[in-house]
């Protein structure tokens, strides 16, 4: 969608939504069901509902009244007595996990949106710059070196550093004379990604069983055991990075009409690219360092929302974030409870539940395009 140019050559009109609609053929391409602001409100409502449901339902069945009581008492800092087991399960185990899932879903979806916009490529995702793989390599190196025993935060830090270093490497490979060629960037990202994957696979052969298990847990993407500290470490980075990306959304809109046109319209193209990439690496790195590699959310959720709300990044970025948070919270809820006590990998659920819905949206869109 964003890759097709069609009549967009003309003017990807400054901030006038109608102009952009004309430019990108949004009306015909997207299933705009409501005004963007209404949709954002609806998404926020869905997110709130998802948090409530995911906190109320879990592996261990607790009375809903008790759950509500724990959350109320702890949030408001009341001095009412609580059943200690309930308190621990809800407040120390379940709620932080739900919120961590929300923050991670938000982060990945926002970054996916930004990457798809920047690359004008529907296959782009937060992983496309190799950031996730680089983060994974950093984390695995930390695990192999025995850092988890030294300090539990060393591995996430290593992942974060790995993600940022990967971005710098990929960016340097694709930049000549201050101009970054997007096609080269894409290829460099894929290549560096594969290389990091191969190094990780190579390490499998030289580590002990216990270490191997830890690596596998990490690589499969994991939301269990997430605590308030994880949320507290991630949330500011994700919030700041997402806000930054949102501030760049007008430039992203203009970039979609082509670099030359954007430059003509006064966008500092190379600066925008650098910032979008750096912020994406920051946000993805924060999510990946805490939860490992959780695929699919950053690829599909932006598309879902683009179909619902159109490609204007000013609306699309917050909508994707809210949608991604809701989606990952619900996927994790299903993963925890569908076959309880068997706990599925969240990634299995994101793909199984998300793909059919996405295909349904795609199919409906084609119909509309044909009829219009």
């Amino acid at each position, binding site marked *: 969608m964003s890759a097709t140019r069609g009549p967009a050559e003309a003017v990807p009109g400054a901030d006038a939504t109608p102009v952009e609609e004309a430019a990108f053929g949004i009306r015909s391409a997207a299933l705009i069901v409501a005004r963007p602001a209404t949709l954002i409100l609806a998404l926020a409502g869905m997110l709130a509902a998802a948090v409530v449901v995911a906190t109320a339902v879990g592996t261990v069945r607790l009375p809903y009244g008790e759950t509500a009581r724990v959350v109320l008492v702890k949030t408001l800092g009341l001095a009412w007595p609580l059943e200690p*087991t309930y308190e*621990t399960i809800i407040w120390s185990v379940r709620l932080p996990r739900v919120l961590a899932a929300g923050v991670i879903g938000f982060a990945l979806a926002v970054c996916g949106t930004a990457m798809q916009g920047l690359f004008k490529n529907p296959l782009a995702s937060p992983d496309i710059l190799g950031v996730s793989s680089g983060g994974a390599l950093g984390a695995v190196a930390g695990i192999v070196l025995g850092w988890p025993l030294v300090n539990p935060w060393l591995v996430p830090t290593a992942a974060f550093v790995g993600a940022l270093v990967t971005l710098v490497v990929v960016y340097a490979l694709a930049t000549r004379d201050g101009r970054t060629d997007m096609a080269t960037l894409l290829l460099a990202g894929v290549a560096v990604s594969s290389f990091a994957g191969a190094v990780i696979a190579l390490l499998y052969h030289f580590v002990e069983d*216990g270490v191997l298990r830890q690596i596998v847990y990490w690589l499969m993407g994991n939301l269990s*055991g997430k605590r308030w500290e994880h949320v507290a470490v991630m949330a500011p980075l994700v919030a700041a990075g997402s806000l930054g990306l949102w501030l760049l959304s007008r430039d992203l809109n203009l970039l979609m009409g082509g670099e030359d046109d954007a430059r003509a319209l006064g966008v500092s193209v190379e600066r925008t690219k650098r910032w979008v990439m750096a912020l994406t690496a920051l946000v993805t790195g924060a999510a990946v360092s805490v939860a490992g590699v959780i695929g699919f959310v950053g690829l599909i959720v932006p598309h879902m929302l683009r179909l619902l709300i159109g490609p204007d990044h000013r609306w699309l970025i917050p909508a994707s974030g809210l949608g991604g948070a809701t989606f990952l919270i619900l996927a994790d809820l299903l993963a925890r409870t569908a076959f309880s*006590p068997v706990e599925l990998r969240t990634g299995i659920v994101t793909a199984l539940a998300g793909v059919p819905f996405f295909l349904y949206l795609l199919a409906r869109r084609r119909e509309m395009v044909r009829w219009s």
Partner: protein
Amino acid sequence: MHGFGVGRKPKASAPGLCVLAVVFGYLLAAATVLAAGGFPRTVVDELGQAIVLEQPPQRIISAGLAMDNILLSVTDPARVVGVTRFALDPAYSYVVDRVGDHMVIFDQLNAEQVLAAMPDIVLVTEWNDPDTVRQLRELGVQLYTFAGFDSVEDALDMVVRIGEITGDEERAQALVDEFRRRLDEVTGRVAGRSRPRVLYLDDWWGTAGPGLAFHDIIELAGGINVAAEHGLRGWQAIDPEALLAMNPDVIVTSTGPAWAEHLKGEPVVQAVRAGRTGRVYYVDYMGIHSHHYILAIELLARLLHPEAFQP
């Protein structure tokens, strides 16, 4: 207390120290008896962390298959409140009939389930999800971590340790003693016989060198581990062609009888001595880390040295 005494009397005579030690020993023994079977006691887990048990734990959770098997063999199942789902699977568990309805069945270590079961102690391994383990530790759940799982001796050590934790050290020691008695019987019979060269092979074409109990079982049953000869350590997948260079006399698998049959039909297996002589065996009890290894050693010894077990 001991260090204090010695430090204050650097010139104390040797006999004096001996008397002190004996008295101290008696006091300790008396205290042990008085305090209901040795509690409170301090146990040290395999990460070196000290755990104080005020009383024999009455609500114990096992978060690993090896601990499921050993714990339910050593202690009263009524005191076990959680096991892994593998404990219910006869393919992996020798204690299926001791799993009770009161127990929580874990798929993987789940913090909510653990907390809801209100355990006195949870037996975990390095294989459990590190984030969940850390979360439980920070929430004040008593954890005992097992590491290793790398040898037959480690399995016996686990039996002793679990006996220490539950206060069933007599039962644990009896299991270990029986293991050693039966092992002596096997080694006595296979001693001095020519040792066939044995290769372990699973359905990933993985083999096992030193650092895994498979290796110990092969050696204790009177074989030579071909993987060790070729310098392999731990679990390693091998190229089927490498089999030709290894040319084992016997191939053994714990994957299942069907896999043993399949291997017999593999061209590379048929090209080596084990395949030509039909010595490709499935041996049960090899894969689960527990005192049940003795059953595997006995089975394998009979296959490697049938003449040694003639009546």
